[in-house]
């Protein structure tokens, strides 16, 4: 069904259940959907698995969700950062599970979920501890690791502009994980800087077609 534009972020995140897998966009703070995460904190879902590149920065966005102890398990590529102190504390206290996935494999596993690929052989990480226990196969003389899709129940992403059908464009490197996560979750909720009338986005420049987007809300009240 075509996307619906919401005025209220709390309405936009309704229905997220305890135990859900939530894909959270952003590379550091660029592209992170802070308004949606704040709404998710108010909404109250807990025991979440969060898939995101990082483990939160400072006290905002994903870090705030972690601080509320709503996240049981984090799947990410680069948790340790200068300002990831919220995550660091939880991890060292044994209060959060961590699965580290190489960044490209993280993206490709979500792409596979969105693209109907059942599994894929990937050379990244072969012979390292991140491939331990995984099926491998030598193809063309090179060891590949069999990787499975990562599918979300919900994706929370940040974009730059949406039209009323949910077509999205992004801005600069804030694009990062948004377009991939939008394909990989059952319910996709996008926070955007502005909503424009349908027909105002160049069809050649659409990055995420509206078919992938269920709900849109503006980053700040207009």
């Amino acid at each position: 069904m075509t996307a619906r534009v919401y005025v209220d972020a709390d309405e936009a995140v309704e229905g997220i259940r305890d135990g859900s897998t939530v894909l959270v966009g952003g590379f550091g703070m660029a592209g992170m959907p802070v308004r949606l995460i704040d709404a998710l904190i108010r909404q109250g879902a807990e025991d979440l698995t969060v898939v995101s590149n990082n483990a939160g920065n400072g006290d905002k966005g994903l870090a705030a969700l972690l601080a509320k102890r709503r996240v049981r398990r984090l799947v990410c590529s680069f948790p340790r950062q200068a300002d990831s102190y919220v995550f660091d504390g939880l991890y060292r206290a044994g209060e959060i599970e961590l699965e580290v996935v190489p960044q490209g494999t993280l993206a490709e596993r979500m792409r596979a979920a969105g693209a109907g690929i059942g599994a894929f052989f990937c050379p990244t990480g072969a012979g390292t501890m991140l491939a331990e226990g995984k099926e491998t196969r030598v193809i063309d003389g090179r060891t590949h690791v069999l990787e499975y899709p990562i599918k979300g129940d919900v994706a929370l992403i940040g974009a730059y502009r949406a039209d009323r059908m949910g077509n999205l464009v992004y801005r600069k490197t804030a694009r990062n994980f948004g377009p991939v996560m939008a394909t990989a979750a059952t319910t996709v909720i996008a926070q955007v800087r502005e909503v424009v009338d349908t027909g105002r986005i160049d069809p050649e420049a659409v990055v995420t077609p509206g078919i992938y987007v269920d709900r849109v809300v503006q980053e700040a009240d207009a």
Partner: protein
Amino acid sequence: MNPDQPVAGARHERRPLDGDAMAALVARDIPRGAFVNLGIGRPTLVADHLAPDAAVVLHTENGMLNMGPAARGDEIDPDLTNAGKVPVTELPGAAYFHQADSFAMMRGGHLDICVLGAFQVSATGDLANWHTGASDAIPAVGGAMDLAVGAGQVFVMMTLFTKRGAPKLVPRCTYPLTGQACVNRVYSDLAVLDITPRGVEVRETFGIGVDELAGRLELPLMAAGS
């Protein structure tokens, strides 16, 4: 109307439907706002029966969402065609994408419905629509197999019998398969039929009774909702 909900009992129209009437029935059953791929040939007719306010979004696998009607006169642009290579138009809110993205969308289950033609459909929903199997035939599959596995629901539009009178809804396909257990519903000249785990259910018939139809098909048929 929700296509998962059969109409109450099976309707009986007085005479078989032509292609246009079949297309109108399919269009009636496509939910508002659905994302739909219409196969080459007869399924293309469905577009003419979609109400503009139904907000149905058409996908064409050569790389576009929100495809508009066929182009006429000055609208014709060789860079803008449908999957049948017929010049088409673009509606507001359209998006273009490349082939890997277009088929990721399809195979990934993001299209709600596809409508395809068929040589044969089996009682368990197998589809044969790409190859007659004749030794001198040149096989051409295009996106048919991708649509068969990827679309949320697969609707088939076909006559229920060949010109020679052979059933096209069969216990088991004799033509090479396009996909296994993928067809959800058949819109035909004589009946609309749901392929369900319980068997083939008749939603409506046109100019023929359920029992007579079952006899001609040599298949058990159930009335929908029975």
